């Protein structure tokens, strides 16, 4: 098995007194695509924000390549090679496309590689090259998603976490975005942790999935083995009584 890149163990995150993530453990191996699925409000976004340092876990451990990052500032964690594309993408609308990409390079200590990364980004996403001096706010939803991904790549991050890349996009464009992500994984050896609402799509593109419901992981397993599993559907839709754990990822 490939080495573990990100390991989250027994993490709790609270909003005030209310736990939003309970005792969550998951791991992401190098060059893997892992999807986290679950209904709204299950704590998926909170989990990503906590891993990226935008929120601080109340308990538990987060290790990136074996190094603990709990309690570290987001800008520090970004420098360690994680890039988070949060829900809604958060493009800097007042900046141009190219300026957005340059901000993306802020975590990149190696300033000389910035020009290189910029060229790569434009070759992967030609539409961005066309509109490089246009305001990012004028891009369409799909283009903004591409910009968000390109921006995340600018730092040279090895692990990209994406919160609902399909949000606000037409299904066809969403498929395209996932195709690009799969391709990037193959060509540049990226590791991806993706939140996705659509279980079918998650199974199609990921190596493994986790299902998060009511702030807890209720299911995890290898996507290929799970296409038709009944357990999975009951876990996702909350039909089953006890949380089951296939444990294929352990």
């Amino acid at each position, binding site marked *: 098995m490939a080495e573990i890149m990100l390991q989250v163990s027994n993490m709790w995150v609270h909003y005030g007194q209310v736990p939003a993530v309970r005792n969550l453990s998951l791991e992401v191996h190098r060059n893997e695509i892992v999807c986290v699925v679950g209904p709204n409000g299950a704590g998926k976004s909170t989990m990503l924000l906590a891993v990226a340092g935008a929120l601080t876990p109340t308990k538990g451990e987060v290790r990136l390549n074996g190094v603990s990052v709990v309690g570290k500032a987001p800008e520090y964690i970004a420098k360690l090679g994680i890039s988070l594309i949060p829900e809604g993408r958060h493009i800097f609308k007042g900046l141009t496309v190219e300026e957005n990409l340059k*901000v993306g390079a802020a975590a990149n200590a190696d300033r000389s590689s910035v020009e290189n990364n910029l060229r790569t980004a434009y070759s992967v996403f030609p539409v961005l090259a066309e509109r490089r001096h246009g305001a990012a706010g004028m891009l369409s939803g799909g283009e903004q998603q591409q910009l968000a991904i390109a921006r*995340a790549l600018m730092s040279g991050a090895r692990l990209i976490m994406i919160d609902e890349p399909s949000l606000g996009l037409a299904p066809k464009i969403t498929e395209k975005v996932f195709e690009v992500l799969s391709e990037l994984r193959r060509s540049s050896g990226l590791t991806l942790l993706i939140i996705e609402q659509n279980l079918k799509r998650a199974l199609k593109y990921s190596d493994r999935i986790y299902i998060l419901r009511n702030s807890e992981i209720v299911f995890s397993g290898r996507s290929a083995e799970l296409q038709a599993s009944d357990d999975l559907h009951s876990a996702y839709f909350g039909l089953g009584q006890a949380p089951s754990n296939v444990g294929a990822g352990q």
Partner: protein
Amino acid sequence: MMGYFSQTVIDALSWGGLYALAALGIGLLYGVLRVINFAHGDFITVGAFSLIVPSTQATAQLALGALPAPLLIIGTLLVVTLVALLSDLLVFRPLRGATPSTIMIASFALGYVIQNIVLLLYSSRPKAVDLWPELNEAFGFAGLRIPQLQIWTVTVAALLMVALTVFLKASSYGIEMRAASEDLRMARLLGVRANRVIALAVALSGALAGAVSLIIATQSGVVSYQMGGPVMLFAFIGTIIGGMGSLVGSALGGFAVGFSSVILQAYLPDDIRPFRDAILFALVILILVIRPQGLILVKTMRERV
């Protein structure tokens, strides 16, 4: 008549430039930090008072003001920048993430403290400061007599704005600062160091306040412990009509307010002239009612480029 009009316009341009600088200082801090800094006016006061030696005499002895021009300018900007950074450290940083109301009251209190420290050190007497008297000599041009200082004011304001624009557009710090002012959390997630960007914005805001205090001190020849207040309020009104938080909008808004204040001053009938500020504020409040998002639609302008 034509002469009076042209003189007024030149006057208006120079005040417009001055208020644009003040509004930029305020807009920068609001843009990056979401801090409504009511102490900005008192930063300006500090800059002006750093020119003279603390005393209660009416005729002031020059302190920084006695230095040769380049050192004088750098010294003044440095003093105000330090005061701004110190304010950030002691007041704004502990309040990061607090409600806007809390921050507003805190900055109001900060301004009050600074103002009264100046009062303690220098007394409440306005003091004459004669900086560069040669600049008040008029300069003949096409039948007009323009004080050199006004030309300097307009030029300095324009240069500073160009420099700031270049910094914000072309340098990586500038781009990161603009990104942070739009969405600080996202910028941090991308590795932009929040504290560095914030400190830089605070320092720039302070330096702008320093520039404003130098111009005002030269122009009026008098400094007083309450001098910053009205400038700040005009500038604030400028940032509001400029759409809050947009730097270009702030500068344009500040310019508009300064410009119209001079025009009002020149063309209001004598008996209502004393109410100029009241009229101006009332006008601005009315404008805001009609256009709550501000008068200058920078965002759409920018997005259409």
